[in-house]
Every structure is written in C-alpha cells, then in structure tokens.
C-alpha cells in the first residue's frame, strides 16, 4: 500500500481544483492521479504518488546530488591524502 514509485505526468485536466487530475506514466503503466496537493505540477514532472494522490514533485537538481556525493567518495578513495 505504501510502496510509492515515481511516475511522469503526461497529461493534466484541470476542472475543480480539488479534483485536478493528471495522467501519470509509471514505467509504461498509465494511471489517473489526483494532483490537488501538487498544484504547481507540469507535464513532464516526476511525482511521487500514494493511493491515487501525488504528494511531491521530484526536484531534478537535488536528485543529482547523490551522484555528486558518489563522485566525491571516488576522489577520496582514488587520491588518498
């Protein structure tokens, strides 16, 4: 129930703000998702979805950080002080 995976917003239909619905593609499976809690979501954004509701938009810059940290780890290992 709680295994939320990120999906990509491919379509947004906005009528009632409480019922702003988007289509979200989860690796090929497209589902209808309520976007009421991510009103700023745009087509192309990746969102985390829980029981039919997007709860967060993924931040690409922040997402990159873990890989930057990994590069730093590499530098430490490759060039010991």
């Amino acid at each position, binding site marked *: *129930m*709680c295994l939320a*995976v990120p999906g990509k917003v491919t379509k947004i239909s906005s009528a009632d703000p*409480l019922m702003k619905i988007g289509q979200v593609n989860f690796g090929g499976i497209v589902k209808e998702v309520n976007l009421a809690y991510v009103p700023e979501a745009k087509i192309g954004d990746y969102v985390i979805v*829980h*029981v039919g509701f997007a*709860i*967060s938009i993924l931040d690409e810059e922040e997402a990159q950080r873990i890989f930057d940290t990994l590069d730093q780890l590499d530098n430490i290992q490759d060039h010991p002080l």
Partner: protein
Amino acid sequence: MKYVDEYRNEKHARRIASAISECVTRRWTLMEICGGQTHAIAKYNLQELLPDKISLLHGPGCPVCVTPVSLIDKAVYMAAQPNVIFCSFGDMLRVPGSTEDLLSVKSRGGDIRIVYSPMDTLKIAKDNPQKEVVFFAIGFETTAPANAMAIKKAKLDGMRNISFLVSQVLVPPAVKCLLDSPENCVQGLLAAGHVCAIMGTEEYQPIAKDYHIPIVVTGFEPLDILQGIYLCVKQLEEGRSEVENQYLRAVRKAGNASAQNIIQEVFEIIPRQWRGIGEIAQSGLGLKKTYAFYDAEKKFPCEFDDREKSSECISGLVLQGIKKPNECSAFGKSCTPESPLGATMVSTEGACAAYYRYQPVS
C-alpha cells in the same frame, strides 16, 4: 533521470557501502522506520553489503501491521452487514482479526471491494445509492491527505450513504514510544521519506535533541537507504545527533502545506491503539466533530477488545525492533503469507513477509 534505475546501480551501492565500512569504528544499531524501506532492505539484501558492525532493526512503519485487532474485527462486522459494500486497500483483506479476516467474509458472499484510491469509494457510493458504503481508511501521514480528501468531498457533495472506518496513525509519537522503552537499543533512525514529504522534517528536531539520536530522512531505493545509513553512521561516529535529509529530491523542510491543511481540516489528533504495541497518546487521527456524520463507528456501533488469536506470534516485538522475524518459532512454518498468523506476515511492507519473500528460511 527516471528516478528509479539510477538508484539501483550495484556499483554505486558498493561504493557507498565501502564508504560506510571506512568510517565505522564500533558497533551501531540503526532502525529504519518505514515498512517500504524494510521491504527494499530485504529485497536488495542490503544488510549483506554492510559491515558486521552495523545492525538494522525494522520499525513499526507498516500501517497494515499496526491497525489494531479490534478495528479489524469492526471491519469484519461491518463488511458482513447485508446492506454494506465494504471498500479497502487490498492488503487489509488477509489481516487476521480475533476470529477471522475480511477475505473470509468475502468468500461467504460479503460485498467487499478492493480500491486503489479512497476516491474510488465515492464513485462506488454514487453508483449504489441503495447501499451503505464503508471505506477502511487506514494509514500513516502518507495516506491521510487522500483519505481526508475523500471525506471532505463526500461532505461537499452531500453524500449520505458513505462512511469511513478510520485508523490513521502518526509516526513521531510511535518513534518516541520506542525510544522510551527500556528495551530500546536503537542508536540512529532512518525516518520515512514519504511521511516527511507530507509533514516536513521539523517535528523530528525535538526528538533528535531530546534523545540525542541522529535522524536521517531517507528514501526508498537501495542507494537512498545506503546513503541514509552512511549519513547516520557518520553522525554517530562524530558524536552528532541532528536531523538530516537524504531524500532532498522529494522532501522539503516544511513538507506539503496543502496536504497538511486538509488533514487539519478533517482530522484531529487523538490517542490510538497500535497492534502489538498498545495505546500511544496523541498518535492518531480521528474525524473532527464537523465530519462525525461520516464516522462508520457511529453508523455501525459495535465493540471488540484487542485480544490476539495466536499466542505464538511475536509481531509486537518485531514491530518494535526487539526481535527479528526469523527469531519467531512460527516463521515460515505455521506462519506464511498464504496463512499468516500475524499482520506483519500479510503486507509486503511487513517485516515478516519481507523476510519470508526474500530470505531463505533457515
């Protein structure tokens, strides 16, 4: 960036694991709070990558597992009423009540429907005006906004034939309860990323400070969990106890304000019973008076106590990180996902089910 495969790269995982090995000098016990993380740890066998000095305990963060037996009994009672359509997330159907589970009501002809979102139940209620629809609104802070929205919308639309059996629980009070226990041996916490995506990270500050424990808000992919462990171990080695955010791509410090607003509009904080743990003060959400009409417990009054059927099941201890699933004598023998004795063997996020699925039974 697709935010999935990138975080499952084995070479990267090994790199973080070796960074952990390099910084660790003594034994540390960490707990991941969320069942989704427990599931990933078992699935990717992350414990194997870690140095022996690091032990992982599995926390109470599986809503299916902590829903009290009395509420399962109430659900079974309501689902068995002739005029009721009972709606639930799929994993609740096999959770054992004191005498039976929802699946046995269904096999006797009860109209029980599995829904993907609480909003689906509104449609079912509209399509069946002659029936009473009840939704089993369970979950942590992650499902609370969805359940709150369904309840709010039911009221806005003036619906009369729908009600909600609410079992919403909150993570921080449960964490404090575990840390207060004399049996506690947890020295660092991986907090549940998606709960924090809703609630933000601030409510963990006083816990980190008062209990001198590092808390790292962590995601759910293997690299997230390993990095969360790395940050936590680094804090422990350096004698720090701070709230850190590993899951920056999804969690903002203030959380999701519109989701928090609707939770506050529909729910109020109340004490809640946790299966296997007992009552924890201020640890749950109940419907506010203005939404009392939608309370299934008022519409279908019934009383059950919290008596467990199986005496062999130690899931309460598993949920508190005191025992591991494979220390239970029933594990993989009389208790399997096909015939579970305890709730932790039912949900994929339950520690017993995760161990059973991914680890050889020895």
